[in-house]
C-alpha cells in the first residue's frame, strides 16, 4: 500500500520528491523518468533500455489493474508484453536483484506490492 509517511526527500532536477520509509513515492503523481533515474543512481545503478521496458510494463499494469503486481503476475505481464525470455524470473532478477516486484514497483513509481514477501 502507498504510505503517506514522509521519511526523506529525493532531489530530482531541483525538486524535492517525498519518499516513504521504504523509499516508495508518497505522491504517485510525482513520478517522472528522472525520478526513476535518481532512485536508481542512489543505489549505484544506471537504468538501461531493458530496465525501462519493465518499468513500462509495471506502469501499464498499475494503470489497468490499480494494483502493483506480485512476482507471479509480473512475470506473466512481462511475458505477454515482451516475450517469454524477458518474462523469465532470471532476467527480472538480473535487472532488479533481490525482489523484482518490489524494486521494480519502486522505480516505476508505484505503491509497494501488497501480496508479496
Amino acid at each position, binding site marked *: 500500500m502507498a504510505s503517506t509517511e514522509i521519511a526523506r526527500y529525493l532531489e530530482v532536477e531541483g525538486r524535492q520528491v517525498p519518499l516513504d520509509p521504504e523509499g516508495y513515492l508518497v505522491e504517485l503523481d510525482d513520478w517522472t523518468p528522472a525520478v526513476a533515474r535518481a532512485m536508481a543512481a542512489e543505489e549505484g545503478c544506471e537504468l538501461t533500455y531493458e530496465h525501462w521496458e519493465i518499468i513500462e510494463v509495471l506502469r501499464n499494469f498499475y494503470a*489497468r489493474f490499480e494494483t502493483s503486481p*506480485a512476482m*507471479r503476475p509480473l512475470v506473466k505481464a512481462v511475458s505477454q508484453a515482451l516475450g517469454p525470455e524477458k518474462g523469465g524470473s532470471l532476467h527480472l532478477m538480473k535487472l532488479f536483484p533481490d525482489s523484482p516486484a518490489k524494486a521494480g514497483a519502486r522505480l516505476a513509481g508505484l505503491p509497494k506490492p501488497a501480496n508479496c514477501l
Partner: protein
Amino acid sequence: MQYPTVPPAGDVLVILRHSPHGSSWLREGLDAALVAAAFGQAVSLLFQSEGVLALVKGQGPGPLGQKGTSATLDMLAMYDIESLFLDAVALARLGFSSDELQLTARPVDQAATAELIAGHRLVLTF
C-alpha cells in the same frame, strides 16, 4: 444452463458472499485469493448470494472516490485465478443473466456447490 459434471478441485476455494462497496468483505476475500495465488496455490472463486453482484459490468469507484473491485477482477487472470464459479440461483434472483457479467464464471447449483467445497483443501468464506 450448464453445470460442471466433474467436481472441480484445487488448493483453496474462496467464497465471496458480499456485494461490492457495501463492506470490505469482497475486497478482503479477493485479497486473500491473490495472496494464495501469489504463493502458487491453485485458487478457485465462488461468487455466492449477493457476491454475484461483484461480477456485474459497468462498476466504478464509490461516491467518495473509493476504489471498486472491478479492476481487481480483471487482474485475476494475471494471478492465474481462472477457476470461477457463480451461484446460478442468486444471479437469477437478482435479475441478471451470464452475458451481463464482466467475467465468465461457471454457474453452479446446490449439488455442484457441495462438490466444489468438498474438492478444495481449504475453504474460506468472505
